[in-house]
């Protein structure tokens, strides 16, 4: 094994191994925090779900309020950051009728939201039709890094 004693050659080998192991396409983390289906007026705190512990350490749902306005269910969601840097988030509401069937499946858009360090903000959403009886919501980060070396 003469090349072990040869430093430039060893470096070259190490470099090639580094490149082989390095370049991978990493699927972004798309889990977040959210809630199960909530009836208007129901206590929301028992229905929260955490799928992403890292995000849950930086962000928490501080309040969910709902009421009927012009026959339509209006929901206010308060989000509080416990992280010193800005968070690039997206949130989505889903709407269900009284039998638990989803209304307008796949049409509720993810809305972008920038939350500054330690900021609390309230976002609102309105049910698309008067038939909505329950809702659920989900918050996750906007994925940025796709490649890792």
């Amino acid at each position, binding site marked *: 094994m003469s090349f072990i004693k040869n430093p430039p050659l060893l470096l070259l080998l190490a470099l*090639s191994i580094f490149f082989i192991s390095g370049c991978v396409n990493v699927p972004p983390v798309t889990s977040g925090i959210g809630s199960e289906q909530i009836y208007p007026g129901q206590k929301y705190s028992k229905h929260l779900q955490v799928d992403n512990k890292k995000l849950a350490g930086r962000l928490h749902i501080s309040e969910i309020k709902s009421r009927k306005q012009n026959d339509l269910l209006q929901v206010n969601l308060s989000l509080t950051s416990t992280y010193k840097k800005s968070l690039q988030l997206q949130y989505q509401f889903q709407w269900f009728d009284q039998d638990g069937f989803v209304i307008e499946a796949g049409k509720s858009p993810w809305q972008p939201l920038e939350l500054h360090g330690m900021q609390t903000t309230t976002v609102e959403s309105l049910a698309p039709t008067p038939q909505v009886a329950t809702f659920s919501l989900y918050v996750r980060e*906007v994925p*940025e890094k796709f490649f890792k070396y």
Partner: protein
Amino acid sequence: MNKFLVTASVSLALIALSSCTNKSVVRYGDATEVETTNINFGSTDLQKVASQMTDSLLLSPVVGTLTVNTRPILFVESIKNKTSEHIDTESITDSISTKLLRSGKFRFVDMGRVAAVREQLEFQQNSGMVDASKAMAFGQQVGAQYMLYGNLASIVKSNKDKSDVYYKFTLRLMDLKSGLIEWADETEIRKSKEKEFVSW
């Protein structure tokens, strides 16, 4: 021996490097997901503008009183594109009018299809092919009571490291009888792009 090893390692490194090149992969994505491909007006902006404007209109107390026992008839005048980009503003008004219709609060007349409707009615009335007792007559359509119209404006700024775009979308509801503006709202979007260091 040493020469062979040098050649081998160099070619290995080259292979490893070349394997890092882009490979195109086709995937179906989530059409409602936040999209950050570039700074231009995109699907997320369209969805955000449409849902915020619809929510605001449907929540306003004025609309609450307008829609108590009736479904007012609206027509959408075009949204004027005052930005520096080419944006299909009809797509925004389509989204807004679809959402408003689906809420069950409003009805719409479509001014973009007047020529087609006239052609069809003329065919029914004058071609001699349609049973006269069942043909749709002229002059029985219902006129719009309110007009929905708006503007989309943008301010674009950039320097060598950063570019920033600000969109402002304004929508108004005018009572066609009195000419009064019954409701108005605007929504803003800020997008920026910065050069970032790539971390290894």
